[in-house]
């Protein structure tokens, strides 16, 4: 009550006092307002652009480092480990059993990562809990079989085969999905076809390649 009253009082005195020189005062106030506006705008814009992603994503390390380049040179192309099964489904990240095809006997190499791999997983017969950068939400159906015949893995996954170490996995705290889906760029701007993996990116390519972005069920389940 008293607040309303006070405000009312202030208002009345102000306007009473301002009556004569209202215009000049207005200008000054507006000028100050503009400065405040600009400062607030810049601060909020920058925090929304720079600080916000830092808060939104948590950083996680892979269980141990994985050298894709080395594996490509030793084992062969992507499909040496990530293959399409006979029934057309996709194996994704290989299971321990696949690793053991080569790593069965003695440790291969003397890296620390190999030690972790052997001690923590091979000896304990535990699957490696890899964090999957490209994991799509549960509602998405993606047929690798339909794409691998005419599309290079790189188009969606980027040059991951050339990497020597596993990069940090960034997890969206809200949704639990990998940052790779939205893309590194918080504005969603992409330079390469693999920079983002949202539905619109699929649709864009489908439109270009098949003339139609596809029906819902083509990619949803």
């Amino acid at each position, binding site marked *: 009550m008293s607040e309303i009253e006070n*405000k009312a*009082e202030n208002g*009345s005195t102000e306007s009473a006092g301002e009556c004569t020189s209202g215009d000049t005062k*207005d200008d000054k106030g507006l000028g100050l307002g503009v400065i405040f506006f600009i400062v607030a705008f810049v601060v909020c814009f920058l925090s929304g652009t720079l600080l916000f992603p830092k808060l939104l994503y948590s950083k996680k390390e892979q269980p141990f480092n994985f050298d894709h380049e080395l594996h490509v040179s030793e084992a062969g192309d992507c499909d040496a480990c990530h293959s399409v099964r006979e029934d057309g489904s996709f194996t994704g990240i290989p299971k321990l059993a696949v690793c053991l095809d080569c790593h069965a006997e003695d440790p291969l190499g003397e890296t620390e990562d190999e030690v972790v791999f052997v001690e923590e997983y091979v000896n304990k017969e535990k699957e490696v809990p890899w964090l999957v950068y490209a994991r799509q939400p549960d509602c998405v159906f993606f047929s690798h079989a339909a794409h691998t015949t005419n599309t290079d893995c790189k188009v969606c996954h980027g040059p991951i085969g050339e990497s020597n170490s596993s990069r940090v996995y960034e997890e969206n705290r809200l949704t639990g999905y990998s940052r790779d889906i939205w893309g590194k760029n918080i504005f969603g701007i992409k330079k390469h076809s693999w920079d983002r993996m949202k539905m619109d990116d699929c649709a864009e390519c489908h439109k270009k390649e098949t003339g139609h972005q596809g029906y819902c069920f083509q990619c949803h389940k």
Partner: protein
Amino acid sequence: MDSALIPEGAKRCSFPKFYMGIAVVGAVVLWGLLAWGLIYWKGLNQTNMNDYYGFALWIWADLAVIAVGGGAFFTGLLKYIFKIDELKNIINFAVIIGFICYSSALLILAIDIGQPLRGWFIFWHANVHSMLTEVAFCLSFYFAVLTIEFIPNILENRQANKVSFFHHLAHNMHGIMVIFAATGAALSFFHQGSLGGVAGVMFGRPFSFREHLNIWPYTFFLFTWSAAAFWPCFTLLVTKITETITGKKLVGDKTVHLLSKIAGWMITSYIIAKIIDTIYWATVTAPSLGFKWTHFYSNNALYGKWMLFTELILCGVLPGVLLIMKSTRENSKLRLLAIILGVIGVCLNRWVMVLQVMAVPVMPFDTWALYIPSWQEMATTILPVAYGIILIALTYRYLPVFPQEQELNYPVEEEAVDEPVVAPAAEPVAATE
């Protein structure tokens, strides 16, 4: 206590009395908010809706408030475009009622959806074929327009108006209001219509399905027309209620008679169209789908032919005739009867076009589905009513809503009464500062 905010020259009840009243209605609002909270927290299982009644009380309330709240756009249209100046006496109030109705409609829609966090999909992933998309867009834009139309009135508050910026803003906004009125009218035409379209396009539901004119089913036009026809009834009804509660005459008879006359002719023309539509539907559309029209009114506990009679004759033809005839129109009791019937009529129409549509079995082996809303649904439906009462009370108290208030209530002692009451209260304060 709040006298400094009360419009100059207006008499209002004492501060405690006013807020006691607000508190009572506020309790109802809290009840509604509690129900809303429950619905968001626990989900729509808090309602009595089911897979047959996907649309129920809420959608009816939505359609009904939008129908009766159509006054804002129509008054705007008549005053600013058709230059019927007499309506200046009611336009502020019509805008407020419209604002309340449309904000309520949006509120109810927000409660009604199963995944509120995805509500924005309707805009972002809009399906242009859907009548509901059209509704959502028009409704939201029109609500924005209404807010703009409402702002000048708020700025006319005694204190706000003292700020020269606000004063000028309000003044200038009045000047360009014609643009908003035109925009509003166009938007309204479409969303009133598309609300009608919601039912009319459902070709799987022979009860609501209507033949189309181009892409629009007849219900599209009927809804727009009925909203245009019945809004004066609701505006007059709310005015009457406000007058009764405040004990003052707020709108001049001339305006009231004009509005009634508009209503009379619009209702009558609408109801003729509606009857023609009904006959066409009953004799051509429904039979072509294998239904005798009586199928939709039999073998259930609620939806009998009386419903059709009530909607068309009792709450359609009758108020139309009563309001057309000068003698009955200018008889305050009969006029009141007519506007009440009119409001019931349009609400009943919306009820039928939502709930009966869901109730009627379409598959020959299906059965009628009847439903009684849960308290949570009722509370959230009453919530906007209570909120509307509070908003009307506040605006009436603090804003110069009714331009005729002074001349109608204290025409002689205007000066004498006014000055002593307000001015002394303000001046000493200013002096001490």
